[in-house]
């Protein structure tokens, strides 16, 4: 998914520079055609259809009852007395909690890992492989493993804690255990991706900068703080953006590990949308919910680029 976004950005950057001659040139469009076809088929069309559906009470197995409600589904999300309001905004709040508590460790530990993995020592590639490997698992597998580790009664973690005499912890049945478990699993599963990107960025930093710093008597921390961090800053913007979007799409981990519990406190907005659509068969309302989520995501992404992206240009 990350690469899809990236690809679109490169495409976007390529189009105007190629079309500078003002004359319409079909060449660039031909180049993006293969992507464009899939984009229209699998992204643009579903998006437009989703907007259409959001204007109806829509149940795909009950075509007899499909009234046009206009912005009714959206109004429900803004009306505190509606049935949807509490559940939706509660799940949005949960998602935001996850975004906040996951993004920071996810970016920081990726940077740290990348620095460690960028050193010169034996078996370096083996370690790189080890840290990247979990990322190749599917979300369900990763979450299932997390469930086996953290589940309250038969989990490995509690088995271990019990054996060393620390007593068991209600990881998934109570807070803050549930969030901790979900963040730990997500971190283990996805940190490899961010790490690889950082690693690539680190390799782009000219060695001469470090050498010069060494001559000036800079220690390791100074080199990290005043060379590494600023040099990878543009990549950090990129990673934070990708991470924000990924965190907003939290679904499989709570779905499998906690089912959104305890007391709906780990139910993310995507799960709420899913339940509205495929559990309560209210696809119209679910579509409206996704579009509102999309708009919120868009605002956050734009802000992210505005704030961090701008400061980099100065």
């Amino acid at each position, binding site marked *: *998914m990350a690469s899809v976004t990236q690809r679109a950005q490169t495409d976007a*950057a390529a189009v105007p520079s190629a079309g500078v001659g003002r004359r319409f040139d079909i060449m660039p469009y031909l180049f993006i055609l293969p992507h464009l076809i899939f984009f229209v088929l699998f992204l643009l069309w579903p998006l437009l259809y989703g907007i259409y559906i959001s204007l109806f009470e829509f149940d795909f*197995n009950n075509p007899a009852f499909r009234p046009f409600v206009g912005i009714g589904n959206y109004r429900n999300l803004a009306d505190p007395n509606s049935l949807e309001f509490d559940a939706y905004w509660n799940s949005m709040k949960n998602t935001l909690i996850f975004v906040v508590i996951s993004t920071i460790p996810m970016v920081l530990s990726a940077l740290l890992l990348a620095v460690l993995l960028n050193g010169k020592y034996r078996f370096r590639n083996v370690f790189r492989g080890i840290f*990247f490997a979990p990322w190749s698992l599917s979300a369900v597998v990763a979450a299932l493993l997390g469930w086996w580790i953290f589940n309250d009664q038969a989990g490995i973690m509690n088995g271990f804690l019990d054996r060393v005499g620390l007593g068991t912890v209600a990881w998934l049945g109570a807070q803050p255990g549930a969030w901790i478990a979900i963040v730990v699993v997500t971190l283990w599963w996805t940190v490899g991706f961010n790490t690889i990107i950082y690693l690539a960025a680190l390799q782009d930093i000219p060695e001469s900068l470090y050498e010069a710093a060494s001559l000036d008597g800079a220690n390791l921390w100074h080199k990290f703080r005043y060379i590494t961090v600023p040099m990878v800053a543009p990549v950090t913007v990129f990673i934070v953006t990708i991470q924000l979007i990924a965190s907003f799409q939290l679904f499989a981990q709570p779905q499998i590990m906690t089912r959104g*519990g305890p*007391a709906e*406190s780990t139910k993310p907005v995507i799960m709420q949308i899913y339940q509205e659509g495929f*559990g309560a068969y209210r696809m119209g309302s679910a579509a409206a919910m996704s579009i509102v989520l999309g708009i919120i995501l868009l605002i956050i992404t734009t802000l992210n680029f505005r704030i961090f992206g701008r400061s980099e240009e100065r």
Partner: protein
Amino acid sequence: MGIHAVVTAKNFIPKAQTSKERVTVHTRKPHLWLAILMVLSLVLAACGQQGGGQTTTGGTTPTTGAAPAGGTTPTTGAAAAGGTTPTAAAPAGGVTPGIGEGTVAPGAATAPTGAGQQPTAAECPDTAQGAQITYWNGFSGEDGPFMTALVNNFNKQNGKGITVKQTIQPFPEYYNKLNAAVASNTLPDVAQIHFDQIATNAARGLIRPIPQEVQDAMGLTAEDYPPALWQGSQFKGQRYAYPLDVHGLVMYYNKQMAQQAGVNVTGGEPLNNEDYEKLLQAGNQGGKMGWPITGGFPNNWMFQILLAQYGGSLFNEDGTQVTWNSEAGVRALTYLRDQQKKYSGNKPLPVDADIVAMEKGNAAVIWNGTWLKPRLTGEGKPASSTLIPQIGDQYKIIAGSHTLAMPKQKTEDPKRMAAAGCFISFMVSNSLPWVQGGGHVPAVNSVRQSPQFQQLQPQSNYAQFAEAAVFPPQVPGIGDALGPDALEAAIVNVLTGKEQDIKGALDRAADRGNKILERNRQRYGGGQ
């Protein structure tokens, strides 16, 4: 993907850094717009993909979300719904997740082949000769093999060369699969449908009324079932399904503590309030708990049982109004809260803490599902199970039931339909091998009254269950009002101490419940 992203990331960085002001503006605009589209479509795409994901729901539909353990799951209660049963709801094993956790090795000792019970030889009509039909259920848990054994029995004994091909679609996504099958016209000939889902699925056109001539050939009548089960499995006066079993909450008790208290738990009658209190007090000492009541499942069901016992009801008779905020409702929830204060060790208990306490011998009593039988009872374990006590003025319990129904087909084949009818009839009349496995009670009277069932422990302790069970009216989507959007929120809030005003909590939940009923009435046009 990783490599690709790295490459593009590199391209992207220098551009942003080096490009002049004007160029940046140029590249930025379309960039932004495309990004807008991309983000929006990503979100939608994500939702779409997850549609195919592995589970249905927590809150909004009762059954699916509830489904913790494979087949042996609570349904009536949106009670189990998502949020509040984190661990129980988790994947695969459900309530008894551990692989070898005291589960009955399927196919072992208990020999799920109908041993002992003389099968009422399936008399299938000649019209069904040689038919091949499909059957879907969601029993992926430890009771799956018992269901498979029952299907195999039919395949061997039907005498007309009928073959039933069973497909197990694990419960979390079971109803999802059925819904998708409507669209692709691949619905099975027979499907397991939970009792409280009959109306919804009938209204949404997933299942069809069983034709009179098929019903006649099946030979099952009102006399074969307890009245509530027989009438409740009809929708708008038409028969849609035949109940196979009854399942719900039973009382698990610590055998030793029951002895100390000197109460007779296995007399075949429920304990009365006085004896029950004695039992709770006997257990409530030395750091042990009389009756651990958690902040989650199954306290919604517990409330519903007490409500019925105090003479209240969830809905009015035609299912158009919520009535749980009655005096009986307030009494029921007050009773639960007070007992929790007295007997639950003075601290909030996470979901399933009651099960663990019972397992370790630290509790006198818990109310929980029949499906915990393999985990909590048996040789060398401190607990056994029996009927829920009588707290209120009349003896009632709330239950769920697995039923067998016929999904709607685009083109009807009389031969397959005859075979399906014969199959359903055989299954419900020979359900003994099935109930052996999961701890359920057979729905059909003759099986329940058979000496073979009477010998089953602990199931026969709570056989009354089938008669005492009350069900919500068959109104499509009515279960939505029992879920976390309405009733469950009130119960959870009161029993986790977030809410002190019991009447107020029930009233607010009733308000929302009525809105949900109204909304579903518009959608499905009411029921019964």
